[in-house]
């Protein structure tokens, strides 16, 4: 049958419809989008959806979190390890406001999520009804797109649009608020049509050939080229394309914390981490290179330090899918608009195969200095209190770079990002742009659901753990296997470090008391152990990793240890301090 005929028959045939509720249409849509896991919490305004969910238990796994914030971070963790869209449910009012932190985190870290909130009946909107909150306006600044549905017939179309917007272009969180009447309303459902186009929205800018050529020319004539890469590489599924580009060009490459793992830690051209607590060489060399090639990163101030002293000597090539990122912080001499999965191969084709041996040797020399002054002491202190670095180092020895490492926010995060080894992409799950304490535990839950076959280790501070520790309940109930490692320094360590360095050691409200974490875990039926001696470290880590099911390991580490190197705020990256 030719296509014209085919069209004719589909046009004349009446569309088959089924009479369903808005709630059922929503769940059917989620299944059609490939959703298998939902993180959520019920309540009055979303009850019809939960009622429908009761009949979908075999098709949709619902994980009951203990707080909606945990739901959003779990959704993020899931999205980051799986590459799929995280799905989160919450009720109106407080349920919806509890989503805000996770949405903001996902927005700034470009994480694809679709959050569904229940809303009061449409006729009550604007009347200060029970649990009514203006979630659309509250979440507008922290979502890529949001929409309120008051009529069930809109549900399939809006859901399709939401998934498309969340995952396309520069990904981000989307929120759909559905009034209760629309959830209950019966309508003639015509099936689900995925969305692949929104007329006012261009997910990818057009690739401009002249910029690719200009970039290639710059790269080919560069003596000291330097690549910086961010999460754009993995968000674009462009790890292979990126690796080919790096290897053919022979250019040293350094990563932002969200870029970590896009190329393996051990790759000979991977020269380390950028930014405030990044490696010595990458920071100093930023102000020594002649061509800076930024791939899928946004020159966050934690990466650039003082902007007016940032890479001023270099010609900057910026590859980004989001035109608003080009020139936002650092002026690009050559803006390479586009999806790096497409632009990188075009660029690779035009560049000469090279080896920058001498230039690379400069990085090695900086690395040697950093090894001697910082890293060796951190990873193998030998005596005295345990350091966070040696814990991560021992973990590396045992996991061999195969694990997913989820972190919270603080010193332990910087240490984990600096020292953890990653053989694979989508393995470093951390809150980058927002720096959300409390992210770690729930994100680890989501990360495990997103990568059920991988070992997931959450590295969390004693402070941040206490922000979302209720999610132990989620772990208990869902029976998943997450290894929780609390690095306890009895301080809000990162703030204490700043107070020590920049506020005359005036330790203002940073000593934080903790409960007995192992007992706490025990009350959730999660096995655990606490160690304070170096001699126990290997056996404790081994026990944790070998344990069937979740495990909490509390490691008492040095109380007043600082993360170095450090680019103090307001300093240039080349003014990085080694101590």
């Amino acid at each position: 049958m030719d296509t014209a005929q085919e069209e004719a028959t589909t046009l004349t045939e009446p569309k088959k419809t089924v009479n369903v509720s808005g709630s059922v249409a929503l769940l059917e849509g989620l299944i059609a989008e490939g959703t298998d896991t939902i993180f959520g919490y019920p309540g009055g305004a979303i009850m019809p959806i939960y009622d429908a969910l009761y009949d979908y238990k075999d098709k949709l796994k619902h994980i009951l979190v203990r707080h909606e914030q945990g739901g959003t971070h779990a959704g993020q963790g899931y999205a980051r390890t799986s590459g799929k869209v995280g799905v989160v449910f919450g009720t109106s009012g407080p349920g919806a406001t509890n989503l805000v932190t996770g949405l903001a985190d996902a927005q700034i870290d470009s994480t694809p999520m679709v959050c569904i909130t229940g809303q009061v009946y449409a006729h009550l909107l604007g009347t200060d009804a029970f649990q009514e909150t203006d979630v659309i306006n509250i979440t507008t600044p922290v979502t890529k797109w949001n929409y309120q549905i008051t009529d069930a017939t809109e549900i399939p179309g809006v859901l399709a649009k939401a998934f498309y917007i969340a995952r396309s272009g520069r990904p981000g969180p989307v929120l759909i608020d559905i009034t209760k009447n629309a959830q209950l309303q019966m309508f003639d459902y015509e099936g689900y049509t995925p969305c692949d186009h929104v007329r006012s929205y261009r997910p990818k800018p057009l690739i401009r050939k002249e910029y690719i050529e200009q970039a290639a020319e710059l790269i080919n004539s560069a003596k000291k080229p330097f690549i910086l890469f961010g999460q754009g590489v993995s968000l674009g599924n462009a790890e292979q394309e990126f690796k080919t580009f790096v290897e053919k060009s022979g250019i040293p490459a350094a990563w932002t914390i969200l870029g970590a793992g896009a190329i393996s830690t051990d790759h000979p051209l991977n020269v380390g981490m950028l930014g405030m607590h990044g490696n010595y060489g990458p920071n100093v060399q930023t102000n020594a290179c002649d061509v800076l090639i930024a791939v899928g990163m946004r020159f966050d101030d934690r990466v650039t330090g003082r902007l007016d002293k940032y890479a001023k000597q270099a010609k900057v090539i910026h590859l980004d899918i989001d035109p608003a990122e080009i020139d936002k912080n650092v002026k690009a001499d050559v803006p390479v608009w586009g999806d790096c999965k497409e632009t990188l191969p075009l660029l690779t084709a035009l560049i000469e195969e090279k080896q920058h041996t001498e230039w690379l040797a400069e990085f090695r020399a900086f690395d040697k200095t950093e090894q001697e002054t910082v890293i060796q002491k951190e990873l193998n202190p030998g005596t005295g209190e345990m350091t966070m670095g040696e814990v991560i180092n021992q973990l590396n020895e045992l996991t061999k770079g195969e694990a997913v490492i989820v972190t919270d926010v603080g010193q332990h995060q910087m240490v984990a990002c600096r020292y953890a080894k990653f053989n694979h992409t989508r393995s470093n799950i951390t809150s980058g742009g927002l720096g959300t304490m409390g992210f770690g535990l729930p994100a680890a839950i989501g990360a495990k659901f997103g990568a059920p076959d991988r070992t997931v280790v959450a590295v969390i501070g004693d402070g941040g753990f206490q922000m979302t520790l209720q999610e132990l309940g989620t772990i208990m109930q869902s029976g998943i296997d997450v290894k929780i490692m609390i690095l306890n320094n009895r301080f809000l360590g990162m703030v204490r470090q700043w107070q020590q360095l920049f506020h005359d050691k005036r330790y203002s409200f940073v000593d934080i008391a903790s409960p007995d974490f192992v007992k706490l875990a025990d009350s959730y039926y999660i096995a655990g152990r606490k160690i304070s001696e170096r001699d126990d470290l290997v056996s404790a880590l081994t026990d944790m990793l070998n344990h069937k099911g979740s495990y909490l390991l509390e490691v008492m580490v040095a109380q007043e240890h600082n993360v170095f190197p450090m680019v103090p705020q307001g300093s240039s990256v080349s003014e990085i301090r080694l101590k």
Partner: protein
Amino acid sequence: MSNSQDIELNGKQEFTITAYTENQIGILNRIAIIFSRRKINIESLNTSPSEIEHIHRFNIVIHETEEVVRKLCRQIEKQVEVLKVYYNTNEDIIWQELALYKVPTDIVAERAPVERLLRAFGARAVVIRKDYTVFEATGHREETDKLIEVLQPYGLIEFVRSARVAIIKDSEGFNAKLREFERREPGQEVIENEFLDKEKNVFSM
């Protein structure tokens, strides 16, 4: 303050941003917060349907450096429901604001200079009642401001001015482009909240 004087002072000048958007609830807020989060004051804001059904046109006037304006425009254009954004200096556009002046009819009728002045400003009467008369004038801010000064001694009762509307001098074929765009892919009606007024008919618990 004249523009050139101002640019010399701090690099800032008046820019008119023109944005074409979908006609969607919430888009005004999405655009407005891009300014407010940077603590930038919107001097004038006009939003209205464009000549093409379903497509709205915003005119936003701010006082900023070109660099900031360019960044703002990219952040606006990145919003899902924004079709296109342009920015222009005052030299690049033709613009008008409309002003209405309400004055007591008896004074206007009695004093000859008023009529002359109004004529000089190109104002015209839109309503004449026994008690008051409403004049309308269009022009730049300075012009409509001057007329306030002039009318003040004659018992100005009320004054209002519209936001700026602006046409870009060297734009070519917007209308044709938009029309073609809408023809290929018609926009959607805004879904009105049809349940909003049905309080009595709706079950609630």
